């Protein structure tokens, strides 16, 4: 029993979180966000099958989720007109099959190459499909997109998928199953050889595997799950516009998968959650949210290439040895420095945006409980000073932190060697 619990405890916890989330967050906004998070988690995980597991940097993953969305919404309309008989529960699979179909078609060309060439071809494919979305407006719906009504057919045991909460549970079910299947994939021969192809494709060829076939198969599976995410999106929003296949969507998959952490399986789950938080909440707080997102991305690439998951795992490893408390003062220092930088840079950015976009509304704007005056030199001066001090403190603390960090890593390595030798 305890063995079973330790093996499946995490999955049980995950299921409980998925089930309980809408009971804890009951507002309309949070239910919408929770639904979107489920979708984003599947999309980011499917993307990471390429990026983190297979070393394939795709710039066009939205093609597969997006085509999943379009096929699902057309199927939904056909169901509404009575020309197609399919329960809504199975609609995401229509999206999955569409994503898979396009991955079979386009991936055959894409996965012939690896590395930079692979990335270039995915970019080309993405542009191609996006351009097609403007050419074939019957299918893509032009600027208005394609809309549908998800309440079709007979209610099954009172479930109509009208209320957001019912849609959420449909999404949660698909999220759980997709996460489980994608995790299972990492424990299969294909999953492991995919890692080997990422690490050293040449050597894989000399142990009998055709790397092209390995990449192609992974690409098709990634396309399937992306399509599932797309199909769920179609049900959730009841409208699909061309931006779902657009380059910005592909870019956000890449960005948030990386932020969440591509080197750990659960990283993209965090990434998916972050994506929705940023798109829904951050964009409410400030007009300049994309700029902040870009800055965070930059910081992560430079200082924490393992993403959020990498940071968590490294600190857990240190916490296990009990050395984490030596880092706490530095973390506090980094926190203060970042708060200062955020205050300074945030004030500057907001003031510039205010001047550029609604300068007509006067020179005052609220900022985190204060009022900024765009016509006051003091405000500008203080903001610049805050940013400068923040940067200075950050760099000082960061160097100290790096020293302690490498000390601890050396100690851990030494302890491990001593253990192996004994």
């Amino acid at each position, binding site marked *: 029993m305890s063995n079973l619990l330790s093996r499946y405890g995490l999955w049980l916890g995950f299921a409980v979180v998925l089930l309980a989330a809408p009971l804890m967050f009951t507002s309309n906004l949070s239910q919408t966000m929770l639904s979107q998070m489920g979708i984003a988690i599947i999309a980011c995980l499917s993307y990471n099958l390429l990026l983190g597991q297979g070393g394939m940097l795709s710039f066009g993953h939205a093609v597969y989720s997006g085509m999943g969305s379009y096929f699902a919404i057309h199927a939904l309309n056909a169901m509404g007109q009575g020309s197609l008989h399919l329960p809504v529960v199975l609609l995401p699979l229509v999206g999955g099959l569409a994503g898979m179909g396009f991955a079979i078609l386009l991936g055959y060309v894409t996965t012939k190459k690896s590395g930079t060439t692979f990335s270039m071809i995915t970019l080309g494919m993405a542009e191609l499909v996006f351009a097609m979305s403007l050419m074939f407006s019957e299918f893509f719906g032009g600027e208005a997109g394609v809309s549908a009504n998800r309440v079709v057919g007979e209610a099954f045991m009172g479930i109509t998928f009208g209320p957001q909460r019912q849609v959420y549970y449909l999404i949660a079910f698909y999220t759980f199953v997709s996460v489980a299947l994608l995790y*299972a994939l990492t424990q299969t*021969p294909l*999953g492991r*050889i995919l890692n*080997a192809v990422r690490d050293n494709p040449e*050597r894989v060829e*000399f*142990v009998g595997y*055709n790397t092209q076939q390995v990449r192609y198969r992974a690409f098709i599976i990634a396309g399937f799950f992306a399509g599932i995410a797309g199909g769920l999106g179609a049900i959730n929003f009841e409208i699909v516009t061309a931006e779902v296949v657009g380059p910005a969507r592909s870019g956000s998959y890449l960005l948030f998968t990386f932020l969440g952490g591509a080197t750990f399986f659960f990283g993209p789950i965090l990434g998916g959650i972050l994506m929705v938080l940023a798109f829904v909440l951050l964009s409410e707080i400030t007009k300049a949210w994309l700029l902040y997102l870009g800055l965070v991305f930059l910081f992560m690439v430079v200082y924490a290439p393992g993403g959020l998951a990498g940071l968590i795992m490294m600190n857990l490893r240190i916490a296990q040895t009990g050395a984490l408390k030596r880092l706490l003062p530095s973390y506090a220092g980094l926190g203060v420095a970042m708060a200062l930088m955020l205050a300074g840079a945030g004030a500057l950015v907001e003031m510039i945006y205010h001047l550029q976009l609604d300068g007509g509304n006067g020179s005052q704007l609220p900022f985190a409980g204060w009022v900024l005056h765009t016509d006051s030199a003091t405000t500008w001066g203080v903001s610049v000073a805050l940013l400068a001090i923040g940067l200075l403190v950050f760099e000082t603390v960061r160097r100290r932190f790096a020293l302690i960090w490498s000390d601890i890593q050396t100690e851990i390595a030494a302890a491990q060697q001593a253990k192996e030798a004994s």
Partner: protein
Amino acid sequence: MSAYSLELQGLTKQFGKTEIIRGVDLEVTAGERVAIIGPNGAGKSTLFNLISGRFAPTSGSISLKGQRIDGLKPFEINRLGLSRSFQITNIFPKLSVFENLRCAVLWSLGHRYSFWSFLGNLKDANELAENWMQRIRLSAKRDTLAMNLTYAEQRALEIGITMAGGAEVVLLDEPTAGMNNSETERFIGLIKEVTQGKTLLAVEHDMGVVFGLADKIAVLVYGEIIAFDTPDKVRANALVQEAYLGSLQEDH
């Protein structure tokens, strides 16, 4: 059906206008251990790259157990029973020792691109990988990432990955490159042990190793094999002394 494990006929390779391999003929019988020696730039590594499918030959033929393999891809050649190691360590750095070896046995055991079976349940693959881990003396480092091994351990893993798939014909490209004397000695013992019964071709610089390991020696100079015989006869060969051992003395 040819009696030879590996047979090269009139093999040539040009890079642009430069001819690196200039008509190589070589016949290796099953179970034979052949050392390939020759001065730097003679084309030893290129010859291995041609046989293992890394490059396609310009002309000539390569037969493995009677079957033409020239022009095939590396994975196709590997599936037919030929495996190779690399002069510059070529392993899976971010996978553990065990995972490295397991990857090396998966295809040969028929698990192909399976995504419907769990690695943990593949008894044959796990046992074979464990077994090879013991044979190359790396059991204590089972879960260590390959990138964190010492150089000598990485070289042993390189041999393990090469041999674990069970290929009958094995090419080892300078297996002892970069090792010191005591390591080399131990390592040659290991190679002899794990290549028992295999057809072996090895590029090697260390003459002690060559004379200790090989049944036959092939001397490659400027893209041609000028002698292919038993160690004693090669040593006595005037051509070899002039062309190779002479130049070796100049080198040192």
